[in-house]
């Protein structure tokens, strides 16, 4: 039992920190810190900087152009980047599709697609959920019918995050209606430029439009874009969903959000004193900080096991639940902290290139939006209800 990092790990942390100091554009970190929206170009700029250093694909092996980091190194990288308010790495190509291709894709697919992901030639998005298939993903209906060298795809996907920027989508589609619903699903790579595809933004409760509906009408997909075997897509999807996700707890995000909350609570005045000195508000903050301190260690326990090669199982479900609860509670407290200035809804001021002045203190404006936006944390990526079912079955054996 040893809570300290090795010398090598400390040296790596120093290297990451120095790199961020030198290479992370302040323009980007300011945007992240203040909760402003990033443009597509912002994301691409940051990806390119990381790729140049060889640090874009933290969870790919070296042979594919990844870093070859172990779980602890990845954890350190995540801690440092979130603390420095670096943009998060857009996960769809790097963290989701990449590992699936490496595990189940053909040699040709890997050789063609992986470099394009690293170089930013493609912007991927994810085609999993459908209007009738959310938590119950296996009931999906989007259909791909084999027609010579192509599949013809018809149907609809939804909740497609940043689909408005994407030129490629990886999709789960139904290729057979026989057997159990999990059977007969295939994993296809689809070009978004196909004329049969229509993308419609979904405006969300916080006023943003980060997710989309994607409609497929007789979309032609070459058979070489099938990953792995036909009708085995469920296995690949599950691999992706339960694939080692060391950052599922979001400790870095939570720490950054907590620091922001404390900063605001020092600036906001209540009864003529800083809000942070209000005993009840301070107690609420302390409670969530204490929970976060424990959760960070639970996360490290899982990370350190993963670094030793033990695949985390249902522990990820615990981290997902606790991690999202903590982040949502911090968001709620931050909304509370800004007081009456939680009310203005001046979205324009957060948009890229806006000249609109915010209303009230500059830190206040994004806080209600963030509170509402992050309600998604307990819904997506397997809702917290789904995670509890996993825990109940896999760990408790109920």
């Amino acid at each position: 039992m040893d809570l300290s990092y090795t010398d090598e790990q400390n040296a790596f942390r120093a290297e990451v920190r120095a790199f961020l100091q030198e290479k992370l554009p302040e323009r980007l970190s300011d945007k992240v810190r203040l909760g402003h929206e990033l443009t597509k170009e912002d994301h691409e700029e940051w990806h390119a900087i990381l790729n140049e250093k060889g640090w874009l694909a933290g969870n790919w092996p070296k042979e594919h152009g990844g870093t070859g980091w172990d779980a602890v190194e990845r954890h350190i990288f995540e801690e440092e980047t979130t603390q420095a308010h670096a943009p998060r790495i857009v996960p769809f190509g790097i963290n989701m599709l990449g590992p699936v291709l490496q595990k189940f894709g053909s040699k040709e697919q890997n050789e063609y697609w992986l470099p394009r992901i690293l170089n930013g030639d493609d912007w991927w998005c994810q085609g999993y959920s459908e209007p009738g298939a959310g938590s119950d993903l296996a009931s999906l209906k989007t259909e791909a019918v084999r027609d010579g060298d192509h599949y013809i795809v018809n149907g609809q996907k939804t909740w497609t995050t940043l689909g408005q920027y994407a030129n490629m989508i990886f999709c789960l589609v139904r290729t057979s209606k026989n057997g159990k619903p999990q059977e007969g699903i295939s994993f296809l790579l689809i070009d978004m430029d196909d004329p049969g595809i229509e993308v419609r933004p979904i405006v969300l409760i916080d006023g943003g439009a980060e997710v989309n509906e994607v409609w497929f009408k007789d979309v032609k997909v070459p058979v070489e874009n099938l990953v792995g075997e036909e009708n085995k897509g469920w296995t690949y999807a599950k691999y992706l969903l339960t694939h080692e996700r060391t950052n599922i707890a979001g400790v870095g995000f939570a720490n950054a959000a907590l620091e922001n909350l404390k900063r605001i609570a020092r600036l906001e005045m209540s009864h003529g004193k800083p809000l942070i000195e209000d005993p009840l508000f301070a107690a609420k903050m302390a409670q969530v900080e204490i929970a976060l301190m424990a959760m960070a260690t639970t996360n490290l326990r899982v990370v350190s096991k993963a670094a030793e090669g033990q695949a985390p199982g249902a522990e990820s479900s615990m981290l997902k639940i606790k991690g999202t609860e903590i982040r949502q509670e911090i968001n709620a407290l931050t909304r509370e902290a800004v007081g009456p200035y939680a009310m203005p809804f001046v979205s324009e001021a957060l948009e890229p290139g806006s000249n609109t002045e915010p209303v009230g203190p500059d830190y206040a404006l994004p806080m209600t939006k963030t509170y509402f936006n992050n309600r998604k944390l307990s819904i997506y990526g397997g809702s917290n209800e789904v995670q509890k079912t996993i825990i109940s079955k896999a760990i408790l054996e109920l």
Partner: protein
Amino acid sequence: MKFDLTEERQMLQDGLRRFMRDSWDKSTREAVLDGDTGYSSEAWQGLAEMGVIGALFTEDDGGFGGAGFDLSVVFEELGRAGATEPLLEVVLAGGLIARRGSDDQKAVLESVIAGETQLAFAHTEPASRYDLDRVSTEATKSGDGFTLSGRKAVVVNGPNADHIVVSARTSGEVADRDGISLFVVKKGAEGMDLRGYRTMAGSHAAEIALDNVQAELLGSEGDAFDDIEWAVARATGALSAEALGLMEACRKLTADYLKQRTQFGKPIGKFQALQFRMADVLIEIEQARSAVINLCGNLDQPRDLRERHVSATKQLIGAVAKLVVEESIQMHGGIGMTEEYDLAHLTRRLTMCDHRLGDTTYHLSRFTRLAAA
């Protein structure tokens, strides 16, 4: 002891519920949220014609109600519809004009009740948070009137208001109860810089900078605190009732959704964990309903008892609102987060109730201080 509504109030409730259902539909909401005022003029006129604005005033003041349970009936129905019409500003600013105004000043109430005049109450300041006594805007005598200088924050309905009731200090230090006075400022008064914006609640609000703005004193000098507290108590009853209506609307949407949405081959309402959570939501909303009754039934009691109920009710409403908002969204899943679906506006507006007139932490702490006193 009687918990049924009087016949008159029952009629008001029934009529208002029908009216709101018809006049505050989805297209009204979308138009309001996209619009320039944060409310629907048609709905406002309709409310005036139905006598709903009048129901907020006593007969002496030209209305035909004005009691706590009149407020609760009206605002619960507004909440149920998710309506954004600035009636709370009438309770605040209108209530203060009625209580403190000269006959001349009170004359405006007739056109308020007729739906022709819009009001706002500019009391909160950038550093006052929820404290009612923390006023630093200054009033200086000038001729037979006063001039005001200072800043007012998040003045709901400010951009639309024809008359703004503004608090300012005629004497004393920033957190003194003594020395606070009230004034009436007219729309477009010289020296008043008003920046309007929309809020998460759908209403519009304004930041107001006052630079030697000519203003008319409302009532006497320096003694406005007690009346402000009285008006805020009434507004807290109204706002709590509105929150209750919003909760009921969220609950109905969610319960309906649980029956209709299927996953894993059955309606998700058949899953026991969701059933139990929905039962908890229901129980807490009943608590909220009782809390509204407690406050609205005690608005005319002596200050100690009234304020004890103000803080108890607002604290409970805030806590239940958070539960209802978060559980409603979570039980819906993704659809609950889309702007198109009714829940988005309802939960935003319900959440914002905690940011007006004091939040849960503020009132919990205040309740302990009132109890100790």
